[in-house]
């Protein structure tokens, strides 16, 4: 039995791959190899809606679609990661920030002239 997190990813992958809104029953059929019940699909969809990744229309039965593309989510995330909010380093520890071109040149010179110790 897959975890909810994995199922969320699987459902999002199906929604991103679909060319329009998708009904829960179709998702259940597409995830048949995982042995997922319809109620589980609904649970996962509700969670994804609460997180703001999925919306549904008013058709009967309801059909679900992704709010934004995978690329949009990745871009939103990178915008946050590369931003310099005051508490950024407490939220996530970034390996090193980006410097401007002049600083980058100085750093490369430092490396070229440095000892190999």
């Amino acid at each position: 039995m897959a975890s909810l997190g994995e199922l969320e990813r699987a459902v999002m992958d199906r929604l991103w791959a679909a060319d329009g809104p998708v009904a829960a029953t179709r998702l259940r059929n597409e995830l048949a190899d995982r042995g997922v019940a319809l109620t589980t699909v609904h649970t996962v969809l509700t969670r994804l809606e609460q997180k703001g990744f999925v919306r549904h229309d008013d058709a009967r039965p309801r059909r679900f679609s992704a709010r934004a593309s995978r690329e949009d989510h990745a871009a939103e995330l990178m915008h946050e990661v590369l931003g310099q909010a005051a508490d950024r380093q407490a939220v996530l520890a970034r390996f090193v920030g980006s410097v401007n071109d002049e600083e980058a040149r100085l750093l490369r010179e430092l490396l070229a002239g440095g000892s190999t110790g």
Partner: protein
Amino acid sequence: MLPVTAVALAVLAALLAWPVPALLARAQWPGRDPLVALVCWQAVGLAGGLSMIGALLVHGLAPWGHSLPEAAWAVVRGHVVTEPVRGDHWVALTLAGVLAFELVGVLLLSWARIVRTRRRHRELLELVVQPGPQPDARLLDHPAPVAFCIPGARPLLVLSSGMVAELDDGQLAAVVAHERAHLAEHHHLLLLPFVAWKAALPVLPAAERAHGAVRELVEMRADDVALGSLSGTSPRRTLAEAIVAAAGGAGGVPTGALAVSGAGVRARVVRLLEPAHPLPAAARWTALSGAVLLLLLPTALLLLPALG
């Protein structure tokens, strides 16, 4: 007449609000032993808050008793005051309350906000990342060379595809070791009080300085820990190369992302390439005892019977 204890605490608070952080931020030795320096910064922050609130509290409670336990006991027992309660006593008590409330409140608020942001990032990440080159690292498809970790109960270590493309295997291992060090030593907890302190007291230049210094020290400490777990002929150089490549490779950095000041990055690279001698044991112990004394001094002043 002001109680001697209140004056002593006020002097300590003033020292910790400006000259001590200024000296510590400018000193050269912290780069030689980031861990000891981090302990010192925590002591400065804690003792600073304690002495600031303590000075106001001791002065405000002076009519009830000459030391904090004595005064508190008198208030609890409903004893009549030994001196008349003047306006400045009430002002001091109010200020102490406001300050304590603000410092603790902002700390809790910062914590809540940080945890919320982390959860949002983790939710986004879980949708878009793929398994990475290392068992505990995930891969994010993005051209900018970026590596980061999200601390918490379920920590997440992320490498961008741009980072993987830019670095060789040894350098990538160095990056992952650095991020693992942040997670293993819970560096985010060392940073939190200074994030909160800066938000609570934006007028205090020491708060900004302390935050910057602690951020830099945490990175140096993670570099040091990473070196310990790296194999290869020259791990120091490998890590330095990884830092320079990641800091300078701006490919695909979205607009709105500000560049960091190069000074901190340069300091990291220099100490990797030309390591200074480690701090002698005597100096380490002096610094650590200093930190302990710094915490004991306001505590003793608050709890022991008044001096005068």
